[in-house]
């Protein structure tokens, strides 16, 4: 077994845990946390596996790194937009303290 396969296995297991987190966590915001982190990490490690193992010229493989960069920039931005929109819509978070509600009564 080649050592690059570990990257693929890691990515897939992290994606699995992200899906489990979306099912098990109590409210929108904690579910968004699971979704954003696990999707970014899992997709990036799978892309790294592809970059290492694909037999293509180096410039073609560098395109995958552009893809990884775009995922890493976009995924947290989308989760931030979703969380803010959910808060503005009135989804009450299940939290201990809520300083955002203190400042926006």
């Amino acid at each position, binding site marked *: 077994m080649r050592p690059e396969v570990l990257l693929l296995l890691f990515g897939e297991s992290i994606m699995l*845990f992200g899906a489990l987190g979306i099912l098990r966590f109590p409210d929108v915001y904690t579910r968004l*946390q699971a979704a*954003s982190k696990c999707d970014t990490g899992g997709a990036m490690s799978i892309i790294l596996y592809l970059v290492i193992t694909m037999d293509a010229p180096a*410039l073609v493989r560098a395109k995958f790194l552009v893809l990884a960069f775009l995922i890493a920039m976009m995924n*947290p931005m989308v989760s931030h937009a979703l969380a803010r929109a959910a808060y503005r819509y009135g989804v009450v978070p299940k939290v201990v303290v809520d300083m*955002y509600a203190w400042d926006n009564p």
Partner: protein
Amino acid sequence: MSRVPFYLKERLEALNEKVLRERLEASNLPSWERVIFTWVTLMVFWIVISTNATPENLSLGAAVTLLIALFMRDLLTKDMRRSGHVVEKILYFSLIYLPQYLVIMAFRLLESNLKVAKNVIFMDINPGIVKIKTDLHSDTGITILANSITLTPGTLTLDVKKKLGETYLYVHWIDLETLNREKAGEKIKGDIEEWLKKVFW
């Protein structure tokens, strides 16, 4: 500052904005440096996207990206700090700062993935929304800081608020440890803010 009357508060905020804008103008890069920065970035992107290193392709890309960089020079470099010579700065940025940031973020992302897996299995969560203060003022810097906070273990940025010249972030923290603003800021931001303060203002 919270006891200032409403009409005074608006004027004060406008004044602060003006002072901040003037400081930004004073600390901006010279225009030819901005053109060179944008040109180098676009050229690297062109080479990677076109996957073709023949001389005619490279010269075509250089001409077109120079033309674009001449009138889009403020888009990427508006918020950068002025320091040092342009060649020195490009070398520092591409050889030291960017790899440093990538290594920090890679380990943080790994840690946060493992932490989410741990939280899913044991369900030991104690969520809360805290408010932290940052020393960054530019839009690009705040955007990168908020994105990095979202990728660090156990935190998710909810909103950004600029108030009286200071910037505050609202962060959803899945495992609440402290309510003190300074301690929470240290724990959440870590060394990313120090890194960003070297590049953006």
